[in-house]
């Protein structure tokens, strides 16, 4: 694991910056609370302090900086606080046998994961089929590709509620299907672009060679184009699955969903619970990390078998 050290160094740096940022972000709230509790703060009064910079406040009231790191509803929680909240809503609940209670992030992550995987499957299928059509048909190349690009310029946040309204209008129960569609909408594009490039990767001489064998279209697809496209496909899939997860979370945000990581983020925002937002955010990041790692391992095994250098 020789790449562990650089990763940990960067992580350490990020955590350090985070801790340093907590004090200026939270100092006003901390000072307000201390003043209410009877301490003398410079300058007096929360309105007065608005015109003073956070760093100045920290310099004038050094004894209260510590409090900025232990607020109940901080503007920016510390990594420690987020970690504790995260544990409380995942591991701790799992230990108590309530992993799938609706207060548990495991439950919400599971809901999000399902939609993500359906969206990923749908988006990948659409992307691959679209790429095959584009590579084999000039008409599709001229017509599909521009629409593919245009589709990605429409903000998904604007489109998501419409998809949900239309799907409920069509009598589709629940939010699973529309969420998967929203997720597929974001996920198909990288797969499409990667596969078009991959299927076109073989050189002219390699296609000529197959012609000298009098190979038919199926043979040149399955024996040359498809295997040649696999390295491109895996790279696209890794981008695609991350996009699918983002799509699902976006699909959960503006739609009044009550479960899923996106719903947790929204509820945390509405109820002024930053810790809930942050731990849902972490759950999403961990989920994305796991999914990408899984695909990466599959890629290594698959390409290793296909003569990849080790």
């Amino acid at each position, binding site marked *: 694991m020789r790449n562990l050290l650089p990763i940990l160094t960067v992580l350490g740096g990020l955590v350090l910056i985070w801790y340093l940022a907590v004090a200026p972000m939270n100092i006003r709230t901390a000072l307000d609370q201390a003043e209410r509790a009877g301490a003398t703060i410079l300058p007096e009064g929360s309105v007065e302090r608005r015109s003073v910079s956070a760093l100045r406040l920290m310099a004038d009231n050094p004894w209260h900086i510590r409090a900025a790191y232990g607020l109940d509803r901080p503007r920016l929680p510390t990594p420690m606080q987020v970690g504790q909240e995260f544990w409380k809503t995942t591991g701790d609940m799992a230990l108590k046998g309530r992993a799938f209670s609706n207060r548990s992030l495991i439950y919400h992550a599971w809901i999000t994961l399902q939609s993500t995987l359906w969206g990923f499957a749908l988006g990948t299928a659409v992307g691959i089929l679209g790429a095959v059509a584009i590579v084999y048909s000039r008409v599709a190349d001229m017509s599909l590709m521009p629409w593919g690009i245009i589709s990605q310029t429409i903000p998904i946040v604007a489109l998501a509620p419409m998809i949900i309204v239309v799907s409920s209008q069509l009598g589709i129960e629940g939010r699973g299907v529309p969420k998967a569609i929203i997720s597929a909408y974001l996920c198909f594009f990288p797969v499409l672009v990667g596969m078009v490039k991959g299927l076109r990767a073989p050189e002219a001489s390699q296609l000529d060679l197959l012609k000298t064998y009098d190979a038919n279209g199926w043979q040149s697809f399955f024996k040359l184009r498809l295997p040649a496209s696999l390295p491109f496909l895996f790279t696209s899939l890794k981008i695609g699955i991350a996009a699918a997860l983002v799509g699902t979370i976006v699909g959960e945000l503006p739609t009044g969903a009550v479960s899923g990581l996106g719903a947790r983020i929204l509820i945390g925002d509405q109820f002024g619970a930053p810790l809930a937002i942050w731990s849902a955010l972490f759950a999403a990041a961990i989920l994305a990390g796991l999914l990408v790692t899984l695909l990466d391992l599959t890629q290594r095994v698959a390409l290793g078998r296909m003569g990849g*250098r080790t």
Partner: protein
Amino acid sequence: MAQDPVIQAQNLSLTFQTNDGPVHALKDVDLTIEKGEFVSFIGPSGCGKTTFLRCIAALEKPTAGNLMVNGLTPDEARRKRAYGYVFQSAGLYPWRTIGGNIRLPLEIMGYAKSDMADRVQHVLKLVELDGFEKKFPWQLSGGMQQRASIARALAFDADILLMDEPFGALDEIVRDHLNEQLLKLWAKTGKTVGFVTHSIPEAVYLSTKIVVMSPRPGRITDVIESTLPRERPLDLRETPEFLALSHRVREGLRAGHSYD
């Protein structure tokens, strides 16, 4: 009874239409190749030697004239898998082993599994690559990769072997060795070979017939029947006979203004 020629071209022309006007890649080419001949096509870039080979392989379509391969049109001959084609780049599939690459044409042509294994062993021995069946292309040197691509073209029963500058990207030492091997292979298999090159010694050393071509428009300036014996050790290249032939090829190239 006289045998039909393997390849027969009459007044063959091919004109590419480009934005800068028509390009005459081939103009009024007449050539007959008999069974078992080793024919080299030599000339500078743009003389149409590769185009002519690609016409035989039905990878290009002549715009005028007549071309017969084994008494068929080139496209019919291609459908009957009459020839194996070796490109300048070995073009092995990186995701297939050497054995897998040689099996590729056999799979496409629907050979039986047991037959495939025998054929792979046979051609690997022919190009002296036995033992490399399970290696991947990147594990082999450039010369070995090109030998594997020749093995791939030999694996099925085509009696014509078309080679487009197969050793062009290799260094001279490897090239000498492969030339020697190719001659042995030709003697063993009795195939008809069409070989494109721009090296005079290579053409003279290998061929029974040397076709000298020149550009703008691509045409044949000389056809030289080699007087060299079939048995050709490498030091044959220092004999007066060899040098005389080389001289004639050079003269032919000069006559076609190829040095302009």
